């Protein structure tokens, strides 16, 4: 899309993955999410130029009301490094899973049963908890005073996500023809981590599925009181 010189466009102008060349005037905000925006020396943006990722080129002489946003550095894909990271993460979680299956198999069974029997409730609770927890932690961090609490909360949240991944692995392990529960769980965790890693390669849908799986696990961890109780929803008549 091009806004030619001498042409006024009424904003806001949203750029989602496209390429826009502005030589004229935009009467309003410009929002860039991925894609590229080039503002030539004759361009004017009356509102704010907000960019979240993407490529913003501002030629000297161009004018914007305000400039906000986040520069998202493009990370060059390094398959070997990614594979190594996934393998290390998978290995650590598999060890934790094996330890958990040996130490407290009922807890893992409770969580994985909740994932299997009530995925919709799990994903709902997981989504709600995550949204709230992330917002609370961000607001806590902004106070500076509560920054240590926010960091502690973040660590707890990551541990809960790890627990969720292990529980998903335990569920997968139960489907494998392996007799020893700790080995089955460890193998299941490795499969889950590999699947989650593989889903990253599928744009949008892959991330959404991976997120939904983890949120279901997270919700189930919460619903079962960290696996201490089996989750049973209300029994409905009719």
């Amino acid at each position, binding site marked *: 899309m091009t806004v030619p010189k001498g042409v006024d466009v009424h904003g806001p102008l949203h750029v989602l993955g496209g390429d826009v060349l502005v030589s004229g005037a935009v009467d309003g905000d410009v929002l860039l999410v991925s894609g590229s925006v080039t503002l030539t020396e004759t361009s004017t943006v009356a509102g704010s130029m907000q960019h979240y990722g993407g490529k913003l080129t501002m030629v000297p002489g161009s004018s914007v009301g305000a400039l*906000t946003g986040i520069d998202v550095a493009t990370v060059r894909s390094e398959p070997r490094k990614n594979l190594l990271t996934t393998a290390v993460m998978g290995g650590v979680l598999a060890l934790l899973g094996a330890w958990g299956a040996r130490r407290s198999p009922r807890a893992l*069974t409770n969580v994985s049963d909740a994932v299997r029997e009530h995925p919709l409730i799990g994903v*709902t609770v997981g989504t709600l908890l995550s949204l*709230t927890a992330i917002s609370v932690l961000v607001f806590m961090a902004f106070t500076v005073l509560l920054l240590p609490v926010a960091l502690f909360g973040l660590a707890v949240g990551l541990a809960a996500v790890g627990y969720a991944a292990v529980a998903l692995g335990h569920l997968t392990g139960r*489907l494998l023809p392996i007799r020893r529960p700790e080995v089955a769980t460890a193998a299941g965790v490795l499969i889950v981590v590999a699947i989650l890693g593989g889903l990253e390669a599928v744009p949008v849908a892959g991330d959404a599925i991976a997120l939904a799986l983890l949120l279901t696990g997270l919700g189930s961890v919460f619903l079962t009181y960290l696996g*201490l109780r089996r989750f049973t929803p209300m029994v*409905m008549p009719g």
Partner: protein
Amino acid sequence: MKLVELLRTRQWVPVLGYLIYVGALAAGYYYNLTFVQLGLVDLGTRVIGMSHREVSSIMAVLALVTLLVAVVAGMVMDRRGWSSSLRVKLRLMVAIVGAQLVLTVAAPLLTTAAGLLGWVIACSVVLGTGIPVMFSMMGDLIPVRDRGAVAAAVAGCAFFAAALFPFEWEIEGFSRLLAVGMGVTLPLLALVAFGRFSFVDQLAGQTRTLGVGRFCRGTPVRTASATFWIPVLLMFAVFFIDSLGFLRIIEAPVLMDASWQSTDVGVRVFIAVTHVVGAAMAGILYTAFSRGWIFVWVFGLFAFTHLLYTFYLRGGTDGAPPLALPLFYVLAVSFYTTLNFALWPDLSTPETIGVRTALGVGIAGWLASFLSTALALSSEGAGTPLADHLTYVNALALLLFVGVPTGAYLARVRRLLREGAHDGPGPDPHAAALPAAAQLRRRGPVRADRLRR
């Protein structure tokens, strides 16, 4: 879901009942959200030339008269046995839609404040009668198991449509459009209500089996009992605090840009979709959890939303507000609206559903709006700054959030005391939380093949 079972076994008449209920309630709620609430403001300020304060006072009158009419209508319905007759409710619905059609056509013709007041009172009578008639239809048409999901569908559809259309409000054009919609629906509705159709008889016959609500099964719930009035008061508090806060919040132009009144299509679509997602989540939680937990979810979300707004306003309002604000607000609104649709029929039987839906919806929705409007106006008149006003609202929201679990816990303590749990040593207090761990220590690790099913 029972609906899936009905579809699988091709029982189309009960499925039609779902469609009638969702269609009627979503359309009615949409009409209330847009034409009555937005319409009053446009009609009063732009067409008649009244101040916002005068229009707010008229809205308060609307709320109060609606509550009174709803309670009277509910009592009449219960006493005459109309509450347990679907056919009577359908006929009353024809009268309500017919009256609404006349009011909708008449609205743009109003030119004076006195005329608007008369229109509002007539509108209150119609709305007040409509509350027990329409809300109680859940007891005739929707199985208890599906009430959360169906309430979510109603809230989601109504909010989705209202957030996106009309994009630019003007009572004249919208009046014509709604009049055409109602004009088409009315003859069909009249045909169903007054004609002799076997499917209506079949639907009417469902009341006996579906009518008793989820919270009335087992122990009967009296209208004059804490079991009924505590939810009424809690829902009143939610609506009251929400309305009290947002009547002043919408004064801040920067926050208006992240609300229903936004002129940005992206924000409006975001709000519409979030309403649907929020309603779906609420429907799932309503079905899965006990009443206490449902209230904790609603109040938690609600208190947090108000904290977010106050935090944002106190932290400076440069630039557009983050979308986290409307996200949480919309989720909270969807949650309590879904709860409002499902809760009152679930606290009723076919014999009591008229009064209870009228009291529930009337007090929680309409009386709360009346009182909060009056209080927000007096706060504005007293010159209370927005940040201070929101601090009071936050205090109330937090009080509610802390009060509900505390109250639930104390009620449990009271019950235990009544049961005499303090008389003897009793069971190990930790036993309930630890049986799994204790058993495992005794049994040792469970083999994976034993865990498989």
